[in-house]
């Protein structure tokens, strides 16, 4: 599809929203949208799918919880020549792989995505570094260290990544994920490396040794988790004093279930998550949907249902209260300036280049 035609498509979709009655005569379309399931899919259903289907009665949206194995699924479908997915939610590292393999659509961001309400083109409205060749970001999520406030005296609550690595002053077990991503970054950060230099240091063998040496200092106190749901569980059972975890799940446990958890925003590891478009059966319909579902208001709406930050700068001021709890979501956004003071932006290029080797070394280190 060429650029002017895509622009036209964007315009028609905007027009069709204004004149809902005009589109009702269209043929019914079923869009299969793949996402992560659980609370995350729920937030997309309420912020995007339901309002869109209401405005476009000919569209039916089918949810598929296949994102955890999205790259494998996309490969298999494209090899079999039978692509059934219309839109897939995935991480930018996997999106770049799929893009290099030519199994998803390259994105012309300014033509295929809505501009901000003030007219800023999409390529400048999305947060810097978030857009990919084939990738449209929706949210910023972060991996954070959390602790159970009941396990530390009130006058000695931890507040930094350095505290997480300080077993003497902050005793107790710590849960980390059973893979190197994030953990090596934190080890270097706690060892005094500036967030901007972390990946330069990690590229050298000495830097990797340094990170593992730092992890060694807390190894006797470590527990490893695999699935995202385990970290709030371990904290709630007081099985561990600290755990790393995804901020959305921690928010759910703390605010919805009332667990005594506090997030350490120091050194939060920030990553994007967003849409990719495979060469599926309903490409026109899905492009219209994406144009609408990634506009400024829609991205801000998603934050009413889950504590992940919208990927557009223009959405930030529109973030309001949680739809069910009525609490102000701004203070829970990873991108809130109060939280975003020392972020480590996950470098996917680094992990695709060095991941194989470092994962082996990390597995070896865990087994020892």
């Amino acid at each position, binding site marked *: 599809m060429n650029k002017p035609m895509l622009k036209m498509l964007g315009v028609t979709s905007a027009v069709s929203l204004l004149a809902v009655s005009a589109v009702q005569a269209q043929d019914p379309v079923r869009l299969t949208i793949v996402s992560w399931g659980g609370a995350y899919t729920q937030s997309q259903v309420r912020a995007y799918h339901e309002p869109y289907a209401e405005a476009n009665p000919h569209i039916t949206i089918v949810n598929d919880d296949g994102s955890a194995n999205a790259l494998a699924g996309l490969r298999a479908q494209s090899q079999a020549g039978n692509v059934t997915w219309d839109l897939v939610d995935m991480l930018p590292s996997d999106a770049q*792989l*799929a893009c*290099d393999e030519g199994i998803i659509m390259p994105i012309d961001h300014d033509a295929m995505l809505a501009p901000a309400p003030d007219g800023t083109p999409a390529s400048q409205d999305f947060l810097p570094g978030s857009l990919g060749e084939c990738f449209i970001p929706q949210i910023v999520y972060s991996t954070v260290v959390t602790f159970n406030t009941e396990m530390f005296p009130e006058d000695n609550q931890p507040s930094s990544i350095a505290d997480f690595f300080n077993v003497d002053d902050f005793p107790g077990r710590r849960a980390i994920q059973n893979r190197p991503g994030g953990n090596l970054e934190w080890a270097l950060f706690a060892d005094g490396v500036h967030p901007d230099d972390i990946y330069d240091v990690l590229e050298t063998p000495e830097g990797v040794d340094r990170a593992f040496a730092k992890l060694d200092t807390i190894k006797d106190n470590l527990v490893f988790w695999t699935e995202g749901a385990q970290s709030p569980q371990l904290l709630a059972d007081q*099985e561990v004093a600290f755990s790393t975890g995804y901020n959305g799940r921690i928010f759910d446990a703390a605010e919805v279930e009332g667990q005594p958890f506090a997030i350490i925003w120091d050194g939060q590891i920030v990553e994007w998550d967003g849409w990719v478009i495979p060469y599926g059966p309903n490409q026109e319909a899905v492009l219209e949907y994406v144009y609408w579902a990634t506009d400024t208001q829609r991205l801000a709406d998603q934050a009413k249902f889950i504590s992940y930050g919208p990927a557009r700068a223009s959405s930030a001021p529109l973030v309001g209260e949680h739809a069910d709890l009525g609490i102000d979501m701004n203070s829970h956004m990873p991108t809130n300036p109060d939280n975003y003071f020392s972020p480590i932006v996950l470098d996917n*290029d680094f992990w695709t280049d060095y991941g194989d080797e470092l994962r082996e070394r990390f597995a*070896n280190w865990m087994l020892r």
Partner: protein
Amino acid sequence: MTQGDAATDPSMTDHMRDGQMVTADGTPLKASLKRAERRRKIIALLFVAPLLVFLMISFIIPIGQMMFRSVDNPQITSTLPRTLEAMEAWDGQGLPDEPVYAALAADLTIAQENRTVGQLAVRLNYEISAARGALTRTARQVSNMEAPYKEKFLDAHRLWGNPEIFQIIKREGRPLTASYYVSALDRTYDADGNIVLQNENRRIYVDLYIRTLLMSLGITFLTLLLGFPISFLMSSLPMRYANLLMIFVLLPFWTSLLVRTTAWIVLLQQQGVINELLVWAGFISSDNRLGMIHNMTGTIIAMTHILLPFMVLPLYSVMKTIPPSYVRAARSLGANPWVAFWRVYVPQTLPGIGAGAVLVFIISIGYYITPALVGGQSGQMISNLIAYHMQTSLNWGLAAALGTILLVGVLVLYWVYNKLVGADIKLG
């Protein structure tokens, strides 16, 4: 009966024609027999055909495909044919000359257009870190490059100045590869192409195979230790009590695996039921709670519980058939209770022990959900890493090699076991 015998037997002339036996309707007996035989075979085959087709589709073909994947290596030969040709002149020492870089540029230009560079990059990254970045980034710029290419490549990514990447392309530029097996056995290639031990801090798999083997043996032994007395009791009780006990054995079998595993987490964790009880009773202090989960102990406890029915059922079915009169006879002939049990009763239960042990061992060697949930780092088994390479790292070649090694290992063990225990194994 052979043709020669029939021809020399004069008493059978009624049913003979041209020196051959015939049936009443005149067809040669041999052909008729053959036809009947063939019909029987076809009918027999038709009976098993659905199962055979099912096994072919759901079992044999996938396993064959998996085993093929562990040596399949199409990415380099199909994407870099010109480079491989140009490299034939290269002696493998130092950096290659301009023609190789020019051929590489031509190959990458085509690969970029066909979008095949991604898979090539992923494949090479298994062999050397940073290859993915080097290939994808260079491929994006290559259409703007002009001769001489060598300099441009050296500018584009530092890896193009490292002879190792070319040695790897040359070594792996074949349709089949052993490199997944080399990695799966904690080996690697050195600069001269010899297979050597992997750097100590990257060795994982051999230790894990050994650990998986030892844990499976331990779990098999524990299920036998726990399962033997209960099976004995069940086989000697009247039917209705035995049935009641059987339900207790089978009850956990009917509950979801995840529920059972989670129940063990509740019981065993540091703030869990058992630790709370021990602390309350004063056996341990609150600071020294036992770590019974998220380690090997947790995996062994939970798996022993889950696999117990696989030991109890074959044991019970064998013990049920042992007449009590044998032990009584041994006792009446003067054996003390221990001798009567050990020399008369136990040998008769061997088929059950053999079957139960094989079932439990083979199931536990490939177990993966329970170790993933309660194993922590020391309780992981080899199947957890296979699952990881299937689902997360997507290195299917390595996963296939690890799986094939496991499969071959189990078959070898089963063969040895069968030699030792012999035909006594009675499955079920």
